[in-house]
């Protein structure tokens, strides 16, 4: 069987396995909650993970790269503030590899050279997207620091303006917001 057929056939198992690994990072009570509560507004983290992994997986299999960034973003944006170290925050991308390897293990054992090549190609695709995940992570962290300064500016702008510590006051005022 070709790799994409195997992946398609085992999609549900792969996604479930991938989610399980991602949720291992949380305490038991929490991962139970994230898994069980279906409402996307009561459980935004669970929703981002479940729709995110499915979206990423589909894009990887179908090769549609335009939307993949937004799915990765949904997950990384959360992990970027949930005190994961950078490697851990993007690490879930690599974890997909081991889930898939488990699924194709039997087929690989038959030493199907074509399948091995396809698998390696697929894994390279994951690596590519993991780089993107890392970029998104860095942008989120940078954004966090910008937000601190933006908030500080909004809170002090008027006083500085009054104290004549800001020049070209009016134009800046309009554009600063």
């Amino acid at each position, binding site marked *: 069987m070709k790799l994409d057929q195997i992946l398609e056939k085992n999609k549900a198992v792969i996604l479930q396995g991938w989610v399980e690994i991602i949720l*291992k990072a949380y*305490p038991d009570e929490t991962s139970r909650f994230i898994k069980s509560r279906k409402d996307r*507004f*009561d459980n*935004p983290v669970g929703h981002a993970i479940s729709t995110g992994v499915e979206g990423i997986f589909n894009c990887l299999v179908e090769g549609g790269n335009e939307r993949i960034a937004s799915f990765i973003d949904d997950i990384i944006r959360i992990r970027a503030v*949930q005190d994961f170290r950078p490697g851990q925050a993007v690490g879930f991308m*690599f974890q997909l590899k*081991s889930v898939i390897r488990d699924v194709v293990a039997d087929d690989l054992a038959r030493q199907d050279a074509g399948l091995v090549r396809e698998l390696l190609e697929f894994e390279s695709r994951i690596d590519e997207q993991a780089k993107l995940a890392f970029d998104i992570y860095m942008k989120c962290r940078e954004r966090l620091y910008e937000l601190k300064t*933006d908030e500080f500016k909004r809170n002090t702008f008027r*006083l500085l303006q009054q104290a004549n510590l800001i020049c070209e006051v009016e134009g800046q005022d309009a554009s600063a917001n």
Partner: protein
Amino acid sequence: MAKLPKPEELGKIDYTPPSTGWMDTPVEFKPGYFCNAAKEKNLAGLHMPNARTWSVKDEDWKLPDNWKEIIMEGLRERLEKYRSLRIFMDICVRCGACADKCHFFIGTGDPKNMPVLRAELLRSVYRKEYTTAGKILGKFAGAREMTIDVLKEWWYYFFQCTECRRCSVFCPYGIDQAEITIVGRELLNLLGLNIDWIMGPANACYHKGNHLGIEPHTFKSSIEFFLDDIKTITGIDIEPSFNRKGAEILFVTPSGDVFADPGTYTAMGYLMLFHELGLDYTWSTYASEGGNFGFFTNNELAKKLNAKIYAEAKRLGVKWILGGECGHMWRVLSQYMDTWNGPADFLEVPKSPITGTVFENARSMKMVHITEFTADLMKHNKLKLDPSRNDDVRLTWHDSCNTARGMGLLEEPRYIAKQVCNNFFEMPENTIREKTFCCGSGSGLNASENMDMRLKGGLPRANAVKYVHEKHGVNTVGNVCAIDRATLTTAIDYWSPGVRVSGLHELVANALVMKGEKTRRTNLRFEPLPGVEQVDDDQPEEE
């Protein structure tokens, strides 16, 4: 040879949290989760106990030797004083209905941010001291000794609760975690264990009248600054009065409206509305703060800071008080002010001089929320409005925790919003009204050093905003809270960029057609009105 772990096992080792029971899992102070310690000068300025320089990260928090006695005595006093506290300590059946309702639990995934567990932090100590089972069975009955680790854990988690009360809506017994947090923080304050983001503003407010510590002349000139902008935009001269004796109405608003963008546009909105009505009102440079960071410290300080509102109303001889758009300010006013500093029998029952409506709901407290006042004006067709000026605004409504759950103000803001804005879209039902999600920065937790935590706490709110942004093209979140205006702006910038935050009276003033105004070309932010060609931002048009 020992079996090598698989690579993915190596990858996950150190972030899988310990699986010990919660009582045996010591608190870990994670950076970004907590705020800085209260400074000595701010503690001393308010005559708080144990004023000293200390740091959260230090092992030694410089507590008095008898700290434990102080805490246990403080707990005993409060159990006697507040019957609700004793009930909340006794009746929780640990059904778990509240467990996943807290924005901090949802955002952090830390089980100790489940409301039921947050309460257990205090309840376990209560059980040990006050219940037979707890005394005998200890841990097996969910009881534990008060130790320094427990104290630190209290500090960490009671300053990770915004006192928003969302959890209480879902509790079959109405157990109010906000009140447990309030008591927890009171106890901590007996040892000088506050955060500086609360103590600093409270101290400034005590000595100077407002959170930023702005002196009267600066307060006045800030408002005068807005008048120039209003003149540029509308061509109208406004002359508000300050500390004017004999005015009919005293107007009090959070100082954030005067100093922090985008609250400032809301303040301009008040000025324009009152001018248009010819309202006989005055600002006060003494009661120049509606907010009350004492409320996040203890009952006494909250009462002390609140006292100036009635005192100023009395001094100026006004008939009643009108209050601006704020969240916790209104929780304090509507639930406590009358009891603390009333009765305000020197005031009259508030009556709108424009419509004649008597605000029966404020019969005792004598203070009216501006959305009640404005909604009444609109209901009586007293305002000329052109909502098309807000046609570039696609609005959703964020119910602020304190106004929604603390005083039931749900309809008036929506009524006003729909009068002044043609495009209005609600967020999903389980995220608004009584069930509204907190901004994640309330109750004095709007500091900078805990930004990570604030963003996590703001996730559920912003997630619903993102949904209506994507579904309906919503680009503005309206609200009536100064802390929302300051902090939701940040949280939404992170989670759902492209949506901004606006106070309600900013939108009202944009739509308000004023007598004698020139053709308006921009909104209050100096952005071109819909249908108007780009305005030269650098040189706003002068009359």
